[in-house]
């Protein structure tokens, strides 16, 4: 039997095995190091950075919905939010098993001097946790002189850098070293919610548009420049640009045109094609909805008289009032003739709530700014509407939407006559017969004009009227 063993051979195998393991381990660790770095950046840091913005925008949307409630549901606006001075602060909302959180503040930073409408500033911050250890760094590997991710994605590994550098509210007050519970990214945005005034187009209807007749047209002017005259076909006219804003906006696909529109046309899914009858931009992909209109709750108590307009009734306000505190009247019936005079020679503000149909006539003196809120329908001749100033913004009709959304109001204007007024009635079918010459704007459910109406939108209307909704007018990210 041979039992001879070579000890040298045994030793070589061990050394070779160890060397192989060492080489493989070095290669493996190098690969793992690269993979971990890339994984941390791509899968964790980039993802969290984007998620933080999503959270901040979600917080902005939450605050925006509260701002809109100031119009649609004022009694519940900012319900549950804390108030300190003029700033409303919402509670922190956590999402996705606390991996995301958002909080926002809202303050009324500006009031329109003409309408009194409030503008709101929304500040929202979103925070996303970053998976991984605190000691995980950022990947700044680039060529010499270049900056990597750390300049873009500011990750708080140990402390909240924003509070430490700029203070809790970013105003250099209250700088503090605040530890964070784990690596996180916070992004901050600031939104400005601007009031939408009722009359931003000549005609805005949520479902269908028909008209005007082939000899009719829709154009515009600006009453701040003087009375209306036709300038939409004369590029040399100094008011040419003001003359081509007779826009029509339809929230559905139904659009039928006979005459000419000197302005833009937009539909939601319509098939409007360029033609000589449309002297503006066409966009068939503009969806919108017009929310129901509710009676404002911020009006003062009604005056004792009158309580109805039956026969001839004259209103002589004792005080001029203001856009936010007008002389307010509550009428149960409107079948007669109503004349509204100024309080002396002052610009006089009047608001009337008619709880029934309007089938009478109205005459407002120059210098009177009247808002007529109606619960029922309107059936008038164009000549029954007398606005002595000729400024459409001085006579505004508002249709209060029925509680039952299946109920449609009706506004019917018959010949003869012309008028200057505005109608905001999102739940109403607007019918106009004959060939009236109209100065103003209308917001309705459907628009039907079967005659050769000439409709002149007053661009000064764009900044008049109570807020009917809010839109986000500005978006800024605080990149500090």
């Amino acid at each position: 039997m041979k039992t001879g063993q070579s000890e040298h051979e045994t030793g070589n195998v061990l050394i070779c095995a160890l060397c192989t393991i060492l080489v493989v381990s070095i290669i493996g660790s190098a690969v793992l190091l690269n993979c971990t770095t890339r994984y941390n950046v791509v899968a964790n840091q980039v993802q969290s950075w984007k998620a933080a913005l999503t959270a901040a925008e979600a917080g902005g949307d939450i605050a925006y919905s509260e701002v809109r409630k100031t119009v649609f549901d004022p009694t519940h606006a900012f319900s549950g939010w804390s108030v300190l001075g003029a700033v409303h602060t919402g509670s922190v909302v956590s999402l996705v098993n606390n991996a995301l959180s958002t909080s926002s503040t809202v303050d009324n930073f500006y009031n329109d001097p003409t309408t009194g409408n409030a503008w709101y500033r929304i500040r929202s911050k979103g925070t996303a946790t970053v998976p991984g250890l605190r000691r995980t760094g950022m990947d700044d590997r680039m060529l010499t002189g270049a900056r990597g991710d750390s300049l873009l994605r500011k990750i708080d590994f140990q402390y909240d850098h924003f509070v430490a550098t700029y203070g809790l509210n970013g105003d250099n007050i209250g700088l503090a070293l605040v530890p964070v519970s784990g690596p996180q990214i916070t992004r901050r945005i600031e939104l400005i919610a601007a009031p939408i005034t009722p009359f931003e187009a000549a005609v805005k209807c949520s479902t269908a548009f028909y008209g005007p007749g082939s000899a009719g047209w829709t154009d515009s002017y600006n009453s701040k420049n003087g009375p209306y005259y036709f300038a939409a076909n004369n590029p040399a006219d100094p008011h040419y640009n003001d003359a081509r804003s007779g826009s029509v906006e339809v929230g559905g696909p139904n659009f039928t045109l006979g005459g000419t529109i000197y302005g833009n046309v937009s539909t939601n899914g319509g098939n409007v094609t360029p033609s000589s009858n449309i002297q503006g931009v066409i966009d068939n992909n503009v969806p919108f909805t017009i929310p129901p209109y509710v009676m404002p709750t911020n009006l003062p108590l009604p005056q004792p008289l009158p309580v109805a307009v039956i026969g001839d009734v004259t209103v002589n306000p004792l005080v001029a009032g203001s856009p936010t505190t007008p002389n307010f009247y509550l009428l149960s019936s409107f079948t007669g003739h109503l004349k509204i005079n100024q309080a002396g020679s002052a610009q006089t503000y009047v608001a009337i709530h008619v709880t029934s149909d309007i089938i009478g006539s109205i005459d407002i003196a120059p210098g009177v700014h009247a808002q007529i809120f109606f619960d029922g329908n309107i059936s008038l001749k164009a000549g029954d509407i007398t606005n002595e100033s000729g400024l459409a913004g001085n006579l505004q009709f508002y249709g209060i939407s029925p509680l039952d959304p299946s109920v449609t109001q009706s506004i019917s204007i018959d010949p003869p006559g012309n008028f200057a007024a505005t109608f905001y009635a999102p739940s109403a079918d607007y019918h106009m017969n004959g060939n009236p010459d109209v100065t103003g704007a209308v917001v309705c459910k459907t628009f039907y004009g079967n005659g050769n109406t000439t409709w002149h939108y007053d661009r000064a209307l764009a900044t008049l009227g109570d807020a009917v909704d809010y839109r986000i007018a500005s978006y800024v990210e605080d990149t500090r």
Partner: protein
Amino acid sequence: MKLSNRRNTHGFTLAELALAIGIGSLVLGAILSSSIALLKALNAVDNYFGTQMQQIRIIDYLNRDVKRGLSVITSADLQSVTITIPNYIIQAGDPEAIANPSLVGTSRTPTISNTPSGPQVNYGSSTTTVVYSISGSSILRTENGAVTTIASSTDQLVPQTTDVELSNTEYTNTSISFLPIFTSGNLPAERTGTTLFSTAYLRNKRRG
């Protein structure tokens, strides 16, 4: 019993030695070439993902600025983008900072002005201009004249941005491609296969 403890005292023959050296050289060559290939592959993959991260960084920088932008203009060759953004932060030298130096670095309260196209939100009397451009193998971001290299690669990163302006909204389409260092013949598909696409809307020009 005789225990065998005989040591092999014979040497290798020349043929055996030559054969052993030959086989050893082959094995060593295989190991060396494999190692080099492995290192090149590791380098190529590392470079690929490193460049891809730079693609993501460029897109993230650009989208952040486009989202908060007031206007975007792209050059004819689509490789330079100029973005105007609100002056949200008070900088040294701004009128507010001159009046009160402690305001430097803080945010502005916006003001509202009426323009022919309607009310407008303003952050200060001026705006900030950000320009994205290519310089050699680097992608530069220049904010009010201050240049930052946000990406740099020898792999010919090529960003292209298209600005699409509709009646009442605006967005940008961006694509960024690069040529991996592990190529076989510089085929066009090797570059297009790395393309990263992105679309960002200007939040300050939205519908509705």
